[in-house]
């Protein structure tokens, strides 16, 4: 009879909590890994040092054209921001009235932010939105209560970007809900119409929709009626984003268990009551992250309206720098500036949507 002899105890694994151990595990675990780490570190340090050198050490911060020219190729000329920053961010809005778009945009962003917080989801929210829109347009357009009138074709820069995004989203949302419901309806005619709309709009680029809106809307109007360029662009963007949002909402509707509508039916609720009280609240809550993604996408897509000559942030940069031969060589710094603005906003919004998603999703991580 063999006596059970236990094998030698294996040596304790090396400490995995110290920084050295962390380095070993994460960066130098194998030869190829180590080589990769060293290469990336070398590349990273070189890139970091040379860009810091360009962007900070040798950079010119004041609006000094001569210093900028001398520093060309060696240091960044952030003076172009000091000089043209206002024009880029605010567009052609009259300088004396710049306080108006600033306050109006702040109010609009504030209302958008509180609408994202579930704490404020109650019956007063639509009223707050309506009030905000009224105040916004009074402030921007003027002509009332002593404010000088400013035409819509002078609105530009960052306030225009925010305005186009928020207004289009607000208008597209109810349209998208109806289209999504229509696509899932049992009535073949309505389903066909909604499907046609969504597939048509989703199959073409935004730029063709904008071109169509700006060329064709005036022709659609009866004789003598003129539409503002801004209105045309808003209509185009709204129709475009409504199609995408309808798809998102449809996904949410599909994810809802059928039992919900069946239970509502047994309670005797009509179709619209079911949608209003049972289906839509649950479906919309599920797709909030996707709606946020659509919002972020829309925020970035507003940069295209430059092509139909509304000068939002990207277009205002072209306006500010293209005709000024002195500052035009420093376009790249200006581009980096607005890249940073877009990145900051979109990154913040995407972080927020991730946070919402984590809060509401059932944890799948073991």
């Amino acid at each position, binding site marked *: 009879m063999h006596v059970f002899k236990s094998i030698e105890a294996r040596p304790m694994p090396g400490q995995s909590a110290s920084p050295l151990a962390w380095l070993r595990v994460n960066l130098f675990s194998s030869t190829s890994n180590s080589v990769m780490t060293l290469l990336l570190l070398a590349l990273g340090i070189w890139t970091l040092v040379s860009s810091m050198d360009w962007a900070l050490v040798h950079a010119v911060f004041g609006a000094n054209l001569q210093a900028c020219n001398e520093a060309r190729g060696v240091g960044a000329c952030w003076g172009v921001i000091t000089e043209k920053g206002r024009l880029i961010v605010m567009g052609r809005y009259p300088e004396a009235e710049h306080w108006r778009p600033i306050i109006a945009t702040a109010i609009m962003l504030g209302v958008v932010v509180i609408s994202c917080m579930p704490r404020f989801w109650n019956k007063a929210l639509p009223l707050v939105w309506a009030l905000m829109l009224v105040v916004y347009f009074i402030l921007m357009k003027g002509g009332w209560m002593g404010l000088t009138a400013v035409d819509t*074709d002078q609105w530009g820069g960052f306030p225009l970007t925010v305005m186009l995004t928020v207004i289009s989203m607000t208008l597209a949302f109810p349209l998208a809900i109806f289209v999504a419901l229509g696509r899932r309806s049992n009535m073949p005619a309505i389903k066909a119409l909604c499907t046609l709309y969504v597939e048509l709009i989703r199959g073409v680029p935004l730029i063709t929709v904008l071109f169509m809106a700006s060329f064709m809307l005036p022709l659609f109007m009866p004789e*003598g009626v003129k539409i503002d360029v801004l209105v045309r662009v808003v209509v185009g963007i709204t129709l475009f984003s409504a199609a995408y949002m309808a798809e998102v909402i449809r996904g949410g509707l599909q994810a809802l268990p059928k039992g919900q509508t069946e239970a509502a039916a047994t309670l005797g609720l009509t179709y619209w009551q079911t949608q209003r009280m049972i289906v839509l609240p649950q479906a919309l809550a599920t797709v909030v992250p996707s709606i946020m993604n659509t919002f972020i996408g829309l925020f970035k897509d507003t940069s295209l309206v430059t*092509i*139909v000559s509304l000068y939002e942030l990207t277009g205002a940069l*072209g306006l500010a720098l*293209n005709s000024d*031969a002195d500052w035009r060589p420093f376009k790249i710094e200006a581009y980096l500036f607005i890249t940073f603005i877009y990145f900051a906003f979109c990154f913040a919004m995407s972080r927020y949507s991730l946070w919402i998603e984590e809060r509401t999703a059932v944890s799948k991580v073991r």
Partner: protein
Amino acid sequence: MKKYTRTLIGSVLAAAGLMAATSAMAGKTLDQIKQRGQVVCGVNTGLAGFSAADSSGNWSGLDVDHCRAVAAAVLSDATKVKYVPLTAQQRFTALQSGEIDVLARNTTSTMSRDASLGLHFVGANYYDGQGFMVPKGKITSAKQLKGATVCVQSGTTTEKNLTDYSRANKLNLKPVVFEKVEAATGAYFAGRCQAYTTDASGLASVRAKEAKDPATHLILPDLISKEPLGPMVRRGDDEWLAINKWVLAGLIEAEEYGITQANADQMKSSDNPQVGRLLGATEDLGKHLGLDKEWLYRAIKVTGNYGEMFERNVGPKTSINLPRGMNRQWSQGGLQYAAPLR
């Protein structure tokens, strides 16, 4: 069914109301201008010498002066003009749709624009031709540009002329077409193309305002096309066309007869009967146009005669520095020949 009846009736009424509200009245352009108290003038987004705004938003240029002259003639106030900056792509639809009353945007008169776009040419306030701008170097003539890349803006007569010239002279030019004029000039100044092409007056303007060192760019002497530039109005309103046409002709004829901004007042008592007619001292020409008799006098007081307009905006003393050239009076061998105002 009662619930649905209510919603149905409500929506039908709403739709009817909307239809009624949107069927506005279509009036003649002059009536609309008088009612509005403003002439809406479509101009360039920024072409120095023709229509450009300074940093305070004041517009000036040859085309801007036409608008001011018309406003002075019609509304007695040259400041009652709203300037709408338009790109090359937007200009025709803006005019066709009624968004603007007159398009004064250095636009070439061509057959297709007149016949198939439904627009009428008012008259040439600048006879021009298309040319090339190259960095100063060994190229002195357009025929040396064999195989060169040329930056051009889309939506203008420029593209077609470039192709015609390239094919006729077997130059095999390669166009790089941009949607926006700033992108086209930017690409040229960055060195992407060896040449930039547009109307010669536009080249002078771009060189003066956008080149880092204007002296290092050369505008080649070859003009490859005819470009009569001038204001345009839309079809269907002969009265408005007549007003624009004769304001322009009147300013040209004023130069012919020596009436200037400075001497317009004393010229009123001139012996020359034609001068008397032009200034409304003797005959009332304005009634043919639906205006009062001092229409041209006011226009001249505001902008001066054609020659003064030219000198002030694009003449040799300005940074644009264009020679009078083809735009001289007919009596001096140029092309400006105003039909007689009588």
